[in-house]
């Protein structure tokens, strides 16, 4: 358990410590973390199922200007180990993940406050013309400081969390557990609405409606859906270009 907790803590640091941003941004998807945490605990398939279910909640996680709307990696790194150890329902795991997703935003704010200190250290080093030290204060030290900040809560939560979660589940009445599970099934709606807001010009909303009810009736695979969507989009752009040209002429 000790080793597993260390590994999950490191995983969270790698995904939110943001060294090699593109890599860490790709790593912090719950669907990816689910498999990795599953491997750590010896059940990749179960981890995958939890991770993919939690991922539905965070489909549209756009971090505009570095402001994370919620920390999907913390949600995954705390909920998935607890869910694996207690054999939770996927939807209950989602309900468990949500509060930690919100909490993670706080950790990010603490990080950005701590980093202010490295700004002034770097300024001093520039004034003293010690440019190698500038590099030290711009990467290595902030990254290690992040490490402590990110590793600790996840390590502790994984080490002790499973028992706490079990005690909590035994404690609260069944109708609340069912309610939370139902909420977990409904909450992906938030992720999807958010994606709609970020992606869509509002006059494109009918394409969402079309996709929604086409799937409700026909239930094709998502790849088929993508083929439909692409054809539709190209047809539309065909007409659009046409009307643009007419507008100019």
């Amino acid at each position, binding site marked *: 358990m000790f080793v597993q907790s260390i590994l999950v803590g490191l995983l969270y640091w790698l995904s939110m410590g943001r060294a090699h941003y593109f890599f860490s941004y790709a790593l912090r998807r719950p669907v990816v973390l689910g498999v990795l945490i599953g491997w750590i605990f010896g059940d990749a398939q179960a981890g995958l199922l939890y991770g993919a279910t939690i991922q539905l909640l965070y489909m549209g996680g756009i971090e505009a200007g570095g402001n994370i709307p919620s920390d999907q990696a913390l949600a995954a790194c705390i909920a998935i180990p607890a869910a694996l150890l207690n054999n939770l329902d996927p939807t209950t795991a989602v309900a468990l993940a949500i509060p930690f997703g919100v909490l993670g935003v706080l950790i990010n704010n603490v990080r950005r406050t701590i980093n202010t200190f490295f700004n002034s250290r770097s300024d001093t080093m520039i004034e003293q013309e010690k440019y190698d030290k500038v590099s030290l204060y*711009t*990467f290595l030290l902030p990254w290690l400081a992040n490490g402590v900040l990110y590793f600790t809560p996840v390590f502790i939560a994984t080490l002790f969390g499973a028992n706490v979660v079990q005690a909590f589940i035994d404690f609260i009445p069944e109708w609340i557990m069912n309610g939370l599970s139902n909420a977990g099934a409904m909450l992906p709606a938030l992720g999807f609405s*958010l994606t709609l807001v970020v992606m869509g010009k509002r006059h494109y909303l009918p*394409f969402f409606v079309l996709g929604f009810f086409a799937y409700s009736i026909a239930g094709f695979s*998502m790849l088929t859906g993508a083929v439909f969507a692409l054809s539709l*989009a190209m047809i539309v752009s065909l007409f659009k270009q046409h009307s643009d040209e007419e507008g100019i002429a």
Partner: protein
Amino acid sequence: MSSKVEVQNDSKKVTKFDLFIAWLRWCLVVEVPVSFDRMQALGFCYSINKILRKVYKDQPEELQQAMRRHARMFNTNADWGSVIHGIIISLEEQRARGNKDVSEEMMESLKIGLMGPLAGIGDSVDQGIVMTIPLAIFVPMALNGSIFAAFVPSLIYMAWAYGFSWFLFNRGYNLGKNSVLSILQSGAIKKVIDIASIVGLFMIGCLSAAYVKFETILSYSSEAETVQVQELIDNMIPNLLPFALVMGIYYFIIKKGPKYLQIILFVMVFAILLTLIGVI
């Protein structure tokens, strides 16, 4: 005498390898030292640290000034913003060679002017399209148990982000400041974004229908039979409740802004109440 000057100039020239190192340092560091007051400033400074020391090798005062001006507030999209580094490196190189037309103000206003638009377009393309559409296609496969599918969206994103930012970094260096304008204004990009957002909306529609679960267990009995309300709804229009839920949250965000915590709490309380009174 003249040959000596040439050699000196050569040893200060920015090579492809220098560019590669600077790009790699940018990718490594960009979001690590982010702070509230200066955002990615130190990341920018770290990225071009080695190059500045090379081009200003015998001009310690100029070097210090350059370090100072690149430790100022900076914030953009890590991928699309790398075109700015390319441009700044080519400008600093010219300034070090004695081209005094390249002023500090010019570089500063270039950085400030470009970082906003590039962040806007970059965040919505990279995070909204390059990450989201593959997730929409592959997460359902992952839910069906495919471990391979779990990694595909992330691999696609990484290939795109590393590839495109390296391309832009070079383009910025080779073409200077005009390159950005040509990229931002090109009609091709607008068209691609347009197509991608239609595909995205349609896919999000499919996903919402597949994965938002909201069904009522209400039923009522008349003399002849027991009627399941959910069946009634399904016969009229399938998945009406999930549709209403997504639309409800969508309009809430449009009207009141992205207040995630409120929405989450509301949905949780709503679900627990409905469960308690036996509606779901």
